């Protein structure tokens, strides 16, 4: 009776804690399943600046307004031309011609989501750079599409001056070809949403798990119970017995591993015990040593970790604590997590095992926290421990540093000729645009573009064979902001912006090149 009433009470408490979702949660349901409330709140506090109101720019914005960024400003002094009205979905055809492009686009974009604030700023970027530089630094992220070389250089250099200045997304497109780059000093990710789970540490069982595994009396057990023992216990037990018989070593050769599997299957009381079959198929967990991934180990020796100070960002404090934990705790492993995969078992045995893991994970988290020298938000510690095998630290470079480095370009001619060809053709176009009257139609010849690209390479290094294909397309449609290219960039850049703002998933590292003739994307490394 006591048990029953407790169950009822528990279930009513559970009911009270979660009711049918409100309208906002329902509206955002399909994205909350990707980045949860924490990601959503990061999006809602973000402020974006977009230069300017081209078809590509509004396509990017559409995919950021829909999921609910906090604020965006479009910086654009131009009036809508007949050409704009034909290729931009966020203008109203002929009726928008002659009106402010920024104002028209803001009005139509804001219709997508009344939770988002949009503003049009009719100044030119040049004017802002000349007279109001600080204003640019008030945003969380700036997106620039097809700026001419001189302005792009000024903007990118300015935003690089201080680590606290906004991230800059640079987007260039010409007909079927495009490229984008994200300029950031440093980007850290805790919630990278890895595909792989943390180790169950079967090779290094924690005391309670070892104790319970050894206490199981397989021989005299009831047949039903025997067929419902979770494979984790089975593996720990068989491994323990194996090590006793083999000088403490796990099975290491192919033959030994086959023998190990046979031992597991030999324990069956009936031929159809699925838990033992599962233990056999999971046997690799017993001989795969639980280690710290090399990428995580590399973080431990990062200078920001080794030279930690009280003002260092929490991420580095957490990594520092993690390095101490790994170094000083007897297992030299990452903290155990409580995430247990499903396995053949009855409810009680599974829930008990889950409880064992949970209790141990809590203990290890306590130990981990004792290595922290500053206070860090509990939710962040939880997320950090859970993802400690998949943390990410990216260090970027200033936009333009690739084109200023002939040696690096020469190497890319060898290793990434296709991607580099598109990059060079677009760089040639950007720099030609600087050399002519502002706003004059750009009609570069293949020869002029080729000369610009060639000038970036060291003397004696030839342009890649594929350069002809890329430069021919750029000369064919230098200014064309094609609806499909704009839409694709709109999606791909918005994905990266979302990853940067939410600090979830892993953003690009380097330049992303897009060719919509053969329909491929590729990367040029930083």
């Amino acid at each position, binding site marked *: 009776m006591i048990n029953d009433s407790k*169950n009822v009470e528990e279930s009513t408490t559970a009911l009270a804690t979660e009711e049918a979702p409100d309208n906002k949660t329902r509206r955002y349901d399909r994205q909350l399943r990707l980045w949860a409330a924490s990601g959503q709140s990061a999006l809602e506090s973000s402020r974006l600046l977009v230069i300017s109101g081209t078809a590509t720019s509004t396509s990017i914005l559409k995919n950021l307004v*829909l999921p609910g960024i906090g604020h965006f400003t479009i910086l654009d002094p131009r009036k809508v031309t*007949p050409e704009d009205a034909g290729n931009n979905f966020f203008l109203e055809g002929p009726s928008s011609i002659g009106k402010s492009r920024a104002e028209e686009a803001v009005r139509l974009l804001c219709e997508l989501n009344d939770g988002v604030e949009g503003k049009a700023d009719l100044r030119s970027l040049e004017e802002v750079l000349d007279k109001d530089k600080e204003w640019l630094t008030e945003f969380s992220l700036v997106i620039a599409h097809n700026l001419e070389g001189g302005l792009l250089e000024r903007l990118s250099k300015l935003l690089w001056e201080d680590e606290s200045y906004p991230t800059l997304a640079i987007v260039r497109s010409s007909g079927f070809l495009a490229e984008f780059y994200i300029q950031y000093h440093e980007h850290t990710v805790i919630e990278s949403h890895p595909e792989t789970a943390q180790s169950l540490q079967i090779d290094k069982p924690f005391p309670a798990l070892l104790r319970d595994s050894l206490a199981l009396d397989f021989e005299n057990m009831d047949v039903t119970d025997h067929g419902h023992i979770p494979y984790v216990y089975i593996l720990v037990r068989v491994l323990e017995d194996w090590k006793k018989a083999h000088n403490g070593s796990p099975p290491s050769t192919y033959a030994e591993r086959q023998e190990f599997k046979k031992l597991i299957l030999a324990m069956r009381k009936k031929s159809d015990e699925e838990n033992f079959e599962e233990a056999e198929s999971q046997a690799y967990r017993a001989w795969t040593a639980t280690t710290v991934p090399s990428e995580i180990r590399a973080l431990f020796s990062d200078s920001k970790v080794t030279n930690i100070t009280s003002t260092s960002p929490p991420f580095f404090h957490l990594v520092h604590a993690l390095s101490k934990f790994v170094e000083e705790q007897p297992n030299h492993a990452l903290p155990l997590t409580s995430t247990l995969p499903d396995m053949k078992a009855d409810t009680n045995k599974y829930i008990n095992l889950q409880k064992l893991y949970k209790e141990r994970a809590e203990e290890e988290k306590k130990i981990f926290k004792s290595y922290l020298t500053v206070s860090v938000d509990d939710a962040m510690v939880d997320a950090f421990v859970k993802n400690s095998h998949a943390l990410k630290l990216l260090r970027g470079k200033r936009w333009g540093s690739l084109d200023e480095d002939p040696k690096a370009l020469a190497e890319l001619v060898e290793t990434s000729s296709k991607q580099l060809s598109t990059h060079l053709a677009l760089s040639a176009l950007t720099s030609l645009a600087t050399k002519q009257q502002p706003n004059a139609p750009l009609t570069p010849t293949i020869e002029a573009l080729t000369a610009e690209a060639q000038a970036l390479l060291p003397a004696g290094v030839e342009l890649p064979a594929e350069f002809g294909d890329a430069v*021919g397309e750029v000369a064919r449609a230098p200014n064309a902001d094609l609806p499909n290219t704009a839409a694709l960039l709109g999606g*791909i850049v918005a994905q990266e912006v*979302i990853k940067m703002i939410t600090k979830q998933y*892993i953003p*690009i590292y380097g330049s992303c090149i897009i060719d919509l003739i053969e329909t491929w994307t590729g990367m040029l490394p930083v």
Partner: protein
Amino acid sequence: MASQSSSNPSASADWPGRYHHIDHILDTPGPRTDPEFAAGDQVKNFLRKESKILVIGAGGLGCEILANLALTGFKDIHVIDMDTIDISNLNRQFLFRPKDVGQPKATVAAEFIMKRVPGVKVTPYFGKIQDKDDDYYMQFNLVICGLDSVEARRWMNATLVNLVDPDVPDSLKPMIDGGTEGFKGQARVILPTITSCYECSLDMLNKPTAFPICTIANTPRLPEHCIEWASVLEWPRVHGDKKMDTDDPEHIGWLYKVAAARAAEFKIEGVTWSLTQGVVKNIIPAIASTNAIIAAACCNEAFKISTSSAAFLNNYFMLIGTDGVYSYTFEHEKRDDCPVCGGQAVDITLNPETTVEQLIETLTERQDLQIKKPSLSTPTKQIYLQAPPQLEKSTRPNLEKKVSELVPPGGEVTVTSSTLPMSLSLRISYST
């Protein structure tokens, strides 16, 4: 133009400069353009005045596809969708507003496009693709699918493959298919009977997670098991024949309550409203940006195929955006034994002891066939029929018989099923 402007009073003739950006491409060939490309007026006239394109789906991909096609210069667009607008669509289906909730997607999307992009005619059909016959599909030059259902894709694919008549070149309708899930997606070009078709690649699909009924009934361990218990076992037990509506918040609320109580009883943590809804509706995360990428890739292929202005995708593009931007473009190969486009029977070798029931089980487990509840027959007799009830009853005794008693070696068995877009021929041989 007159007939088009009648559908939209604000439409006027194309204003000067309207297609400035696209005309760059249509006036001049590029280095990788097919020599057949008829630059200039010929290709523009075809695109803007003659071509007729069908979009299947007016949801996440469909909204994007319609907008891209309209801006690119396709002026005669048809769209089919059987769904109505739900509030959870509004985070990505950007042609819809809160006031449109409950309205048919195809109709609202078509009206929005015609209002925003003057001179484009979008003809909606609020209903199923299966309502339309071959003559209907024959009128289009190209079909783009933005669907979330495997079954609808299989049907569309099989229909377009069957439409191909080698003597009538126009009967070959390129099918461009897109799909997304979270930060991932794919776009592909199918030339029916020429390239690999949708059915050829069925084994690339992830196997859906299915929980064994005995786990759900006796040994629940995960919150999902409790939710399945509520929806699969408790709902029919308590509500009888009343159909569960996964869009009805009251129904979800009931399932959540029942699942949460069971979880509490078994001390299982993690049953939430959101998980309950996710499990019973089989919700796939979806965002505007991924749909934009895949829809743009699809429309770009439609544009290139329709204009020959550049080579088109051969034939599969997949994108993963969770870790950087990773994509893979490759040629998916045609399967000679594809039940839809291969024209050959599927060979299957059985142990002579195999019963009809075991054969049925084998068929339903095969990832490359994906059959639910198959009915089997030979040219001369019915082996087992799932419906109607009287025939099911009369053929049921065959389930326990050996296949080898009913089908000679090398004999053919015809398999039909509601999940199969065609009937499948099996050629049976026996291992000795």
